[in-house]
């Protein structure tokens, strides 16, 4: 395991792809990319690849998709809340 500073926008799968694109071997195991309790990033890569990986990690800006909207969010987006829906369905 090689330790790095965690990028602000980390996406493990995208980082894995970026490392492989530069010829750095890293497995698909979940533990191959880890963040510990101190917020440090650990990669299961060969030690000889550390300096090359450091540049990739430093430039990494992963996709951080927002969570899918909840049903309540979807209803609110059209001006309806759950109570309105219950009332309309005769459930309140």
């Amino acid at each position: 395991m090689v330790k790095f500073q965690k990028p602000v926008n980390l996406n493990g799968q995208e980082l894995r792809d970026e490392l492989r694109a530069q010829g750095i071997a890293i497995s698909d195991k979940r533990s191959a990319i880890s963040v510990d309790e101190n917020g440090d990033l650990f990669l299961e890569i060969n030690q000889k690849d550390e300096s090359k990986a450091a540049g990739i990690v430093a430039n990494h800006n992963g996709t951080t998709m927002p969570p899918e909207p909840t049903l309540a969010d979807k209803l609110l987006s059209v001006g309806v809340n759950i109570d309105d829906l219950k009332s309309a369905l005769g459930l309140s």
Partner: protein
Amino acid sequence: MATTTTNYGWDIPQSTDLVKDGATAIATLGQDIDTSFVGLKGGTTGQVLSKTSNTDLAFTWVAQDDSNAIQNAIVDAKGDLISATANDTPARLAVGTDGQVLTVDSTTATGLKWAAASSTPTFVGCQLYMSSNQSIANSTNTTLLWGAEYFDSNGFHSTTTNTGRITIPTGKAGYYLLTGAVRWSGNTSQRRNMSLSKNGTYIAGTDWMENPSTNEGYLIQTFAFMVNAAVADYYVINVSQGSGGALDVIADSSYFGAIYLGA
């Protein structure tokens, strides 16, 4: 013919003695008998004889409750016990009440007392929770952080250092039931994984996976797992997810706990 009695050696008149000496001889014998049996003289109702030495007929009258016997009167009620307040000093310990157990207590006269049975064992363990949601990057195994404690009986956890850990404190090695729950924010893409690690190494058989069927944010993964832990062993929960982006573990309903089961 013998001149003394067989057992006590009292002088006895001889057949050859002069008749005129008979009364004197009888008086002498009588006095000897009287002297020998002086120890039997006296006494009061209920007393019994007690030897005062190994000498023949060395008796004295003593009360029936002499110092070498425990008498019936020492106990007064059903359930009373005979205890002691000191060397050679028996004493009554009155019966306790229903459900009480006999307990050693050096502050009491007998060193014993009846006391309520302990029905509430002292809890040992901790229960931790998140002080805020924790963002988990896509496809990244991440240690969960527990910034707050519901309770922590023996310093299992720190809210300032290595906050992801439950660490076994000194004197508390043994078997533990570790429990935890992780509530994910709403998203239905791919799996959610949760695993338990000991001293930085994944524990085989502690990997729980879920495929979300709802995006309402009610997906909660839970576990209960027993471990045999040594002092200073530490445990963390690691999670990962494959939603494609960052996903929160929600503080509300997420927790990590340890219950000490025994050595």
